[in-house]
């Protein structure tokens, strides 16, 4: 194993460790299934790291990250993670079945894991938008004195976009002292792998009547379409957003179902994760808004919610401060953002008809998505109808996130200043990708309710 591979493995493990430390403190009394706990730890680790990288970039001190500091932090995180793990031994439930499922998945995905380490970077947005910025933050110590953000040579890189992804990549480059755009794909593959494990853990936890074989068949059939495989490790950030949306939906479901009045253990990680979304891609902004409205809405429906709202609001500040730093930097350096008006123009009808056509085309576009999107759409429609007929309205709350997110995409297309005929075809498949893991989680959740109704 080469040095760059060793470091990227440690980088991935580091995120699990700090996520685990955070969750074991927050979920002291909760017993979690390993297959759900591990992917949540991963994404929380990311959510805790990214704002720190923003702060370092803002004060121009990314040079703090190097092999030595990285190893010290890794060893410290490892020791603390082992200690809290030993202290809260009963907190994570690992069964033989879960280990079998995880082992089967790992074996199945070996070609993908290998390819993520041994393949070159080629895809358009990865190079034009994310990895060139990563190089910029590898060469410059932060946002200031950064060639990419000065002059007009790199306008095409969408400079106003959040820099969470490039900062993670640049951190890795700094750890190994070399811009290795091949091995870092292994890190990004984990957004995909964790989405699969989360789906697996969730269905295993929820639908007890299914055998391990059926669970594996369902999850793999859903997650191995060419669309997922392509975006699993090609340097795009959409799989990270997909992982974030799915993780938040799981937490919303837990919050919804917890009978105790204290919803803080769910709201805090939920806001941190959704907040990290705003630091990775702009789609994360409306998603954070939806998460806050729904998360606080559920908290308000329970008694004694004021303290919960105050504490979770504090947690929300953590990613938001990083976002404000970025916004302030953009404002002071005159970096342009491409939404000039928030009210749709006179061409609204033409735009709507174009958008609807693209939605329908995407729904039926089987060459990359397989039949999964069509099947998922109609199954979700059936499950939702059943829940409405049976007046189980609370079970529809997670669906609001998906509906809300689709609604904001539609709204953004109505007001975008960029040519719609170029933007729509190039972005639609990725919007589907961002929502698919969440759709799976919602289907399983609603499916569980409907199975109970029919029983």
């Amino acid at each position, binding site marked *: 194993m080469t040095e760059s591979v060793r470091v990227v493995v440690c980088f991935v493990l580091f995120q699990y460790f700090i996520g685990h430390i955070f969750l074991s403190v927050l979920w002291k009394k909760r017993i979690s299934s390993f297959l759900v706990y591990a992917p949540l730890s991963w994404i929380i680790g990311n959510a805790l790291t990214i704002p720190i990288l923003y702060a370092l970039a803002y004060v121009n001190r990314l040079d703090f990250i190097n092999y030595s500091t990285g190893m010290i932090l890794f060893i410290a995180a490892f020791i603390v993670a082992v200690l809290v793990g030993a202290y809260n031994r009963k907190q994570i439930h690992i069964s033989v*079945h879960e280990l079998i499922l995880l082992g089967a998945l790992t074996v199945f995905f070996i070609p993908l894991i290998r390819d993520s380490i041994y393949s070159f970077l080629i895809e358009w947005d990865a190079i*034009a938008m994310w990895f060139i910025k990563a190089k910029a933050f590898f060469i410059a110590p932060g946002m200031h004195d950064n060639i*990419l953000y000065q002059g007009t040579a790199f306008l095409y890189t969408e400079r106003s976009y959040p820099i969470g992804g490039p900062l993670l990549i640049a951190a890795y480059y700094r750890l190994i002292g070399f811009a290795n755009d091949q091995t870092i794909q292994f890190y990004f593959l984990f957004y995909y792998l964790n989405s699969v494990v989360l789906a697996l853990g969730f269905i295993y936890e929820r639908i007890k009547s299914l055998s391990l074989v059926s669970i594996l068949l369902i999850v793999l059939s859903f997650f191995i379409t060419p669309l997922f495989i392509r975006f699993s490790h090609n340097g795009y950030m959409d799989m990270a957003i997909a992982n974030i949306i799915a993780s938040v939906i799981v937490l919303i479901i837990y919050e919804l179902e917890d009978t105790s009045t204290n919803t803080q253990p769910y709201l805090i990680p939920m806001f941190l994760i959704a907040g990290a979304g705003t630091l990775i891609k702009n789609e994360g902004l409306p998603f954070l808004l939806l998460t806050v409205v729904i998360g606080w809405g559920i908290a308000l429906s329970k008694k004694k919610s004021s303290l919960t709202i105050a504490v979770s609001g504090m947690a929300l500040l953590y990613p938001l401060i990083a976002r404000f730093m970025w916004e302030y930097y953009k404002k002071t350096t005159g970096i342009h953002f491409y939404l000039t008006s928030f009210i749709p123009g006179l061409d609204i009808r033409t735009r709507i008809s174009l958008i609807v056509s693209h939605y329908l085309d995407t729904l039926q576009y089987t060459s990359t998505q397989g039949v999964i999107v069509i099947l998922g759409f109609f199954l979700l429609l059936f499950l939702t109808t059943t829940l409405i007929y049976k007046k189980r309205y609370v079970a529809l709350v997670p669906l609001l996130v998906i509906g809300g997110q689709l609604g904001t995409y539609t709204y953004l297309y109505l007001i975008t200043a960029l040519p719609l005929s170029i933007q729509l075809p190039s972005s639609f498949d990725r919007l589907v990708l961002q929502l698919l893991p969440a759709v799976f989680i919602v289907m399983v959740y609603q499916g569980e309710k409907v199975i109970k109704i029919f029983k």
Partner: protein
Amino acid sequence: MKRIFSRLSALSTLEKYILPSLLVLFFIQFHYYKFFSQKFGEIAHYIDRSNTDTYDQIQSQHQYAELYKTAKTYKNTTTPVYVVITLHDNDFLDYTSTYYLKERNGVTQKPVYLTELEMMTRYFFYPRIIPTLSFKQFLSLKRTVGDILISDQDLRNIFPPTTNVAVIPTVPKQFISNVKKPPKPYYLFQVTQ
């Protein structure tokens, strides 16, 4: 073993009904996944892991490998390097820069084209900024010995007979990425006289 498969022996009614459909669905999906997984293995087998320079070994199979090598050699030098872009295709219209220019200039909108070749050049040469020349600008360019020219067409046909250029050869790649169409041809030259 009995414990592992214990849930299989007692299939629920739900499962009995859906299992055949699930199997068919899985095999349809697996058919496509298998294509990718086999392709993925090829490049991994090609790498000689005992050699420490794995990065360059993999990069030598990149569709723009020669451009990468040229950038590696010249990005920290003062040797003039130019990108000559002669073809404008609406597929490569850079809407971000175009929109920015429209905002700055008010009404007039100047289309800005960003080809993959130019994007790759900017990426490989970063932080050095390589100027992009149109065909017209290229014709009036004063070329000196040693200049590097990266172009989207074979410039040998249009060079004045007095200028000698050496072609930096490109070799066909063994492992073309399986998720992306092959790139348009590009040419590398060095002015020799």
